[in-house]
């Protein structure tokens, strides 16, 4: 008899009881009225719910009522014609085990157990509901944003670095036209903060040089240079011209995926994004969730003038390309001088693309 454990943390006390022959076990068909099981719910150690057909969903409600309304705490097993694709459903309504008619699909059941761990709905244990989790996380973020509304950028950075995420937050920097401001502020608090710098293999020589000079001037001691995977580059951009065929795919290869790998060890990231950059950034909050981690945008509310004032006040070195009219600096393949007041208009000019993709929940890449 095949019995798959749906819930690895099963109750060993029940195991013991069943093994010793104590406690009642019973089998009921899936269309049983839950009200008939009030007594059984108190006394049984195991109840088997039998599915005549996997299409008959009454067994799911029966399980749900046993666990919920009747508070049944014993073992619950699904038997009969159930298929591996129902593993997540069975588990979430409160089944512990399954003993299907077909015994030769152990691998399929094992695979199915790994899927859909999270669901929109609360499971019978009241956990893993996306709704609940989002509510808690959003409450945390809303509280942080409320707190940071009253603080200036330098204080936000200090708070995030020392109080909220000490040792667990890094700075993402392109070492572009405005980068010096945020980097300078971080250097005032903790110059050993990891600074993640994406070397796409397509950077302006001036950017690479500026990165070294600025880090040196500011005393930043932990610059982590992130490269795309050499194997992936060989597979996907062998001729080096992917940027000209599909800018999205090139950004994904050289920025999005490398950054994903790099941020895995951090709970939060600083970015230099600002609302006045326009486009998707118009409503940028200071704290937001992106791809399961937190992004902190301390300069979100800063204007172009404020940036310039800061540069002058602290006499920060400027990126050499800013003299040539480059207001926003990315890879040389896709960056041109800004056309007008739209600071990012030189990025992917002539395409509808305005963002590289590292700041948004990323799409599934085609296989």
């Amino acid at each position, binding site marked *: 008899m095949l019995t798959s454990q749906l819930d690895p943390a099963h109750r060993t006390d029940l195991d013991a009881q069943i093994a010793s022959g104590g406690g009642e076990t019973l089998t009921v068909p899936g269309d049983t009225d839950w009200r008939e099981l009030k007594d059984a719910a108190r006394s049984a150690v195991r109840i088997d719910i039998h599915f005549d057909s996997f299409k008959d969903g009454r067994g799911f409600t029966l399980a749900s009522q046993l666990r919920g309304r009747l508070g049944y705490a014993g073992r619950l097993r699904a038997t009969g014609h159930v298929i591996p694709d129902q593993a997540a*459903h069975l588990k979430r309504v409160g089944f512990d085990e399954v003993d299907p008619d077909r015994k030769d699909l152990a691998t399929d059941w094992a695979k199915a157990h790994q899927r859909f761990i999270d669901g929109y709905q609360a499971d019978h244990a009241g956990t893993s509901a996306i*709704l609940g989790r989002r509510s808690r996380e959003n409450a945390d973020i809303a509280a942080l944003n409320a707190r940071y509304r009253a603080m200036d950028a330098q204080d936000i950075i200090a708070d995030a670095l020392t109080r909220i995420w000490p040792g667990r937050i890094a700075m993402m920097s392109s070492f572009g036209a405005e980068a010096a401001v945020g980097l300078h502020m971080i250097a005032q608090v903790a110059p050993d903060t990891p600074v993640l710098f994406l070397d796409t293999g397509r950077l302006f020589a001036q950017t690479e040089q500026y990165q070294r000079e600025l880090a040196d001037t500011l005393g930043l001691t932990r610059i982590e240079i992130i490269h795309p995977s050499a194997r992936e580059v060989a597979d996907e951009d062998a001729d080096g011209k992917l940027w000209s065929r599909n800018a999205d795919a090139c950004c994904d290869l050289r920025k999005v995926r490398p950054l994903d790998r790099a941020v895995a060890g951090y709970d939060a990231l600083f970015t230099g994004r600002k609302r006045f950059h326009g486009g998707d950034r118009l409503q940028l909050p200071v704290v937001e969730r992106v791809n399961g981690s937190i992004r902190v945008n301390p300069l979100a509310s800063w204007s172009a003038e404020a940036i310039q004032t800061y540069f002058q006040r602290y006499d920060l070195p400027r990126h050499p390309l800013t003299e040539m009219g480059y207001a926003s600096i990315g890879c040389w393949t896709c960056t041109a001088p800004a056309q007008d007041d739209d600071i990012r208009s030189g990025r992917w000019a002539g395409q509808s693309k305005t963002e590289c993709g590292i700041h948004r929940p*990323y799409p599934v890449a085609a296989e």
Partner: protein
Amino acid sequence: MYRYDEYDHALVRERIEEFRDQVARRMDGRLTEDEFKPLRLMNGVYLQLHAYMLRVAIPYGALRAEQMRVLARIAQRYDRGYGHFTTRQNIQYNWPALVDIPEILVHLAEVEMHAIQTSGNCIRNVTADPFAGAAADELEDSRPWAEIIRQWSTFHPEFTFLPRKFKIAVNGAAEDRAAIRFHDIGLQIVENADGERGFEVWVGGGQGRTPRLARKIRDFLEPQDLLSYLTAILRVYNQHGRRDNLYKARIKILVDSLGIDAFREEVDEEWGYVRDGDLRLPQAEIARIRAFFTTPRPRSVSPAPQTGPAAFRSWLDTNRRDHQVEGLSSVVISLKPVGGTPGDATSEQMSIVAELTERYGFDEVRVTPEQNLVLPHVENGDLFAIWETLREHGLATANAGLATDIVTCPGLDYCNLANARSIPVAQAISATLSAEGLAEIAGQVSIKISGCINACGHHHIAHIGVLGVDKRGEEFYQITLGGAMGTDAAIGEIVGKGLAGEDVPAAIARILRRFLELRQTGEAFIDTLRRLGSDAFKEAIYADLAA
């Protein structure tokens, strides 16, 4: 527009991997067809007469330009260059290969789309007013609620193997463009005497073989109770809906057999238990979802144009709708060119619509249950440019709501269940009425055609309904009159014996000509019909046939 977070993305990705695995297991025999069929249906995959059909979900009919572009590309690359927009605001592709569908789903997932639960005995696409967020008669935008219900109903562990399909619709305007009284659950946003917003809840409506008007189960449901109340209804249905007879398995039959009062008691008893648990909707979550759905403001305000070429003005008359924001309008993009297949769009047309959506439409386009498209928000100053572009691509037929704006199911040309063809009938009716100039003069008339009694063409709720039947290998068509959706919802009545296919267009023309004779000033077709009854038209239908 709602944007996925990492949870939404993760669920869609897992679903794709699950389906890819299911296809593999079907191919090598670990799944029989009987086991595979409900699984593929829950991913929108039907097997039709000629090929598989993939039904992609368009939640509450709303799309961004980027999404419309992907739909166009899928039609181009995996299908035969066109797609069909449906009466439940989805899109269907008629020719995908099963082995390509996992890849299609990957492309869809890249733009936050999927084909989850567009078929099968589960909760289907939640539909809403296609003019939500724009309509001048709107009390509240129905889309946030449709999105909340969508998430609650997706991969619901308890309600994935229901007795039968389950359809929910939400309406937030005075006019009911979502036909909530013809859904398993219909929700009308209302305001109570204290000025609080909530839902009027209707249950047990439907079309199909046994059309029913929904019954009101609750006058006022508070927003935080929405999901717990729906759960209670679904739980009662899952337990007690019939599973012995496919044609008696919908919730409308259960409500019939218990009676609405007894049904309500069952629901309330269950609801009492779940009401205050984790199904209670936090205000913060309602606010978070609401924040995704905005109404734009125009960059410049001008009134709707009064001048221009005659064709433009006539298009404005029929296809433009007033907007709740000054300076904006909504426009209907007709997918009913005279003699065309209702609801079909080519890949190129979809791309053009995507461009218009992006350039003029504040990045929003909608699918209507009448198989048309809508740009809900356009600036009045852009109306002429939009019309010109639509015209170049056969999308500017000025017939929204007119007799040539016909709704039809795919019928025997595509569908396994059909008894008769429906598309050619629609084409012939459209051509006849157009040739005789009847459509413009007759004004608002809804004509809907179903190729079998499953009524996917929604003929029951049409002013003039056409139902195809098979009699000893020949196609006959029954006419029904007087159906209507909306607050004065009604089911159409059969007027007599069926007509041969070639006689139908002339019969419809005679109905409209009779209407023109009988109408009083300013009366719409449905008003005249209600005033005089269908007997006044019966004779017109069957005239000329005795000879």
